[in-house]
């Protein structure tokens, strides 16, 4: 039947901005098919992305999904025969599965209609809650223990233990809170889950509420996520109509209801004690722990706060069992992690990978490699609380312990890919500026420490740095780690300390030679045109946004340093390396 004819997707996966062989191969293949009278027997489609990267021209044959890589024009006759099933083309066939992702949390995101509870139920939704209600609260916590789920907000505290601590308190009422105050620059995993699968978060909290003997759930969502708030509120109404929320849920003795609270835009409110203060209507500042929220939390009562992604993992664990969850990932870090991959990466977006996957697989097999085509320099994880991981550690597995050993953290899931055009001093300075703005000011180590660190970074980036500053940065950073009141201050020095640990030479280049190798610290960069290398094409002059370049084809071109804003446009457009930036 004509409709069932095979379809061949093709794509030059080694394509660059200058050269893309997709169209060429497409034309050759069509010509070949026409010659053989097969033009109607096989449909050939040029695709934008074939899910495999840097393997030359790749073809995917449907139905079946067989992949062939590094195809040359000479291979096309054999490919056609393979498509028609007339022969085997093992020589070019990719046998490893290119799909490195595993979707537990994001399984419904992009599949179901988030505004439809029927879609969620059809996908197995609320089965986990039904199952939980047939078990005792202790059994639910046992199931969580078997799963090995750890907090996805970043610190990785075992979720079951948090639940058990709350459940064992005598005081009532108890509260469960969903921390949706996602504030790391570049991270938006939680937003996507709240917007794409709101019922999963509700179901997770309902199960948690049952296990901990709580009847009150609070969804704390930052006000910058209006769509997430709208969808969550709609989901709560739908769930109440169906009897999943409210009094005597599904005919059991368990009652539970939700309240949505909006965050007012302070990064520190993602820290649990600040978040509780904010919900209570107080200024969002942290308080010392212990007592932990499990003992004395909201309104002084036992409270469990979990992150959005943590809650969204819970329905799967109840529905499929803790063992099924523990089977994914590593022994110490079970399950998957969602990352928001941004920066110099070809495919920026949300990915979900099993714990223990290597950074190399994330960057190259899923992300498609560095967008600029330049060498990878480092990967930053954990946002302002994390650190950078240099390219030489690309093969280390991604789990809580390993990232910690490397001086970074898992964090909530921001992952920023950096190439050699990223300056490590500049990166650390950016995060410190963020922490200076967001420090609540309650404790001195954070309030003064971030400010002092930023002072040293400004000095270094402006060419006034001294070698002694590096030791100052280290000692201030360590003092902040030890003495700050909350996680914000304890981790605010991480970007500084980890860049200094791995890229001390780059710091010294700034301090001793007053040079910024990545040309990011503007005070240390001067662009000049080398007359001998210049071919007088005038491209630099045309691309200069501030008209700082003057001259003509006979006398050559010069840059007026007074006008130059050091944007690097001339450097980037010059095809002859005639613009020097140093």
């Amino acid at each position: 039947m004509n409709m069932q004819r095979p379809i061949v997707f093709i794509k030059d996966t080694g394509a660059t901005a200058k050269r893309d062989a997709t169209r060429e191969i497409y034309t050759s293949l069509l010509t070949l098919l026409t010659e053989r009278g097969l033009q109607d027997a096989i449909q050939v489609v040029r695709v934008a992305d074939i899910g495999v990267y840097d393997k030359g021209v790749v073809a995917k044959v449907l139905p079946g999904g067989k992949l062939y890589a590094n195809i040359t024009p000479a291979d096309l006759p054999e490919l056609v025969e393979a498509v028609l099933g007339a022969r085997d083309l093992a020589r070019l066939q990719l046998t490893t599965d290119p799909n490195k992702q595993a979707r537990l949390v994001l399984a419904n995101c992009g599949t179901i209609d988030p505004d439809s509870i029927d879609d969620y139920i059809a996908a197995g939704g609320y089965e986990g809650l039904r199952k939980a209600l047939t078990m005792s609260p202790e059994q639910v916590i046992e199931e969580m223990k078997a799963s090995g789920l750890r907090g996805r907000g970043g610190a990785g505290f075992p979720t079951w233990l948090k639940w058990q601590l709350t459940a064992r308190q005598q005081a009532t009422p108890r509260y469960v809170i969903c921390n949706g105050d996602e504030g790391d620059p570049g991270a938006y995993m939680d937003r996507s889950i709240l917007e794409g699968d709101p019922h999963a978060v509700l179901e997770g909290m309902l199960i948690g509420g049952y296990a901990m003997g709580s009847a009150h759930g609070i969804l704390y969502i930052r006000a910058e996520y209006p769509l997430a708030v709208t969808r969550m509120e709609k989901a709560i109404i739908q769930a109440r109509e169906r009897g999943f929320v409210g009094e005597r849920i599904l005919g059991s003795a368990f009652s539970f209801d939700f309240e949505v609270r909006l965050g007012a835009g302070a990064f520190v409110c993602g820290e649990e004690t600040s978040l509780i203060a904010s919900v209570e209507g107080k200024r969002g500042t942290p308080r010392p722990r212990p007592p932990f929220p499990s003992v004395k939390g909201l309104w002084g009562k036992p409270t469990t706060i979990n992150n959005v992604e943590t809650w969204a993992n819970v329905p799967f664990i109840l529905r499929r069992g803790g063992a099924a969850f523990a089977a994914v990932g590593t022994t110490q870090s079970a399950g998957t992690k969602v990352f928001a991959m941004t920066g110099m990466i070809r495919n920026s977006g949300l990915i979900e990978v099993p714990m223990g996957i290597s950074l190399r697989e994330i960057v190259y097999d899923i992300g498609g490699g560095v967008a600029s085509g330049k060498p990878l320099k480092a990967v930053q994880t954990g946002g302002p609380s994390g650190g950078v991981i240099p390219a030489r550690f690309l093969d280390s597995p991604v789990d809580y312990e390993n990232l910690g050993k490397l001086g970074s953290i898992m964090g909530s899931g921001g992952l920023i890919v950096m190439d050699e055009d990223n300056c490590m001093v500049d990166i650390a300075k950016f995060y410190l500026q963020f922490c200076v703005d967001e420090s609540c000011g309650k404790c001195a180590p954070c309030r003064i420490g971030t400010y002092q660190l930023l002072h040293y970074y400004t000095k270094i980036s402006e060419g006034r740095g001294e070698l002694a500053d590096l030791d100052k940065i280290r000692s201030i950073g360590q003092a902040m780690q030890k003495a700050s009141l909350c996680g914000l201050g304890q981790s605010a020095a991480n970007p500084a300390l980890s860049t200094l640990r791995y890229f001390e030479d780059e710091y010294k280049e700034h301090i001793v030679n007053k040079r910024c190798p990545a040309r990011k610290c503007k005070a240390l960069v001067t662009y000049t045109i080398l007359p001998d290398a210049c071919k007088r094409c005038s491209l630099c002059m045309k691309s200069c946004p501030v008209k700082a370049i003057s001259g003509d084809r006979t006398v050559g071109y010069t840059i007026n340093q007074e006008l130059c804003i050091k944007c690097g446009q001339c450097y980037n457009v010059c095809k002859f390396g005639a613009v020097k930036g140093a």
Partner: protein
Amino acid sequence: MNAGMATVNYIKVGMSTCGLAAGAQEVFNTLTQEVARRNLNIPVLKCGCVGMCYAEPLVEVAVEGLPTVIYGKVNRDVAVKILDKHVMGKMIVQDYVYEGVPRT
């Protein structure tokens, strides 16, 4: 992922913040209007973000007998092409298919 052929018909538009910021609402409106105008028997649905934020707006198309595919960087013109070529002509639209996301 995507190895078999679709057995039902639908069009899904990714309509989370990333999609909407890239123009998903316009694509959704175009698809709904054009499907009605052409009297096509295919539902236009919405869904959350599938993860390929760099290629938004994303449109997933399932038409019986063809593999289910995700089109990326869809605008009004591509949306119309999807209806003319893919839904009505049973031919996958060139240059806009993104195969990078695992389908569960």
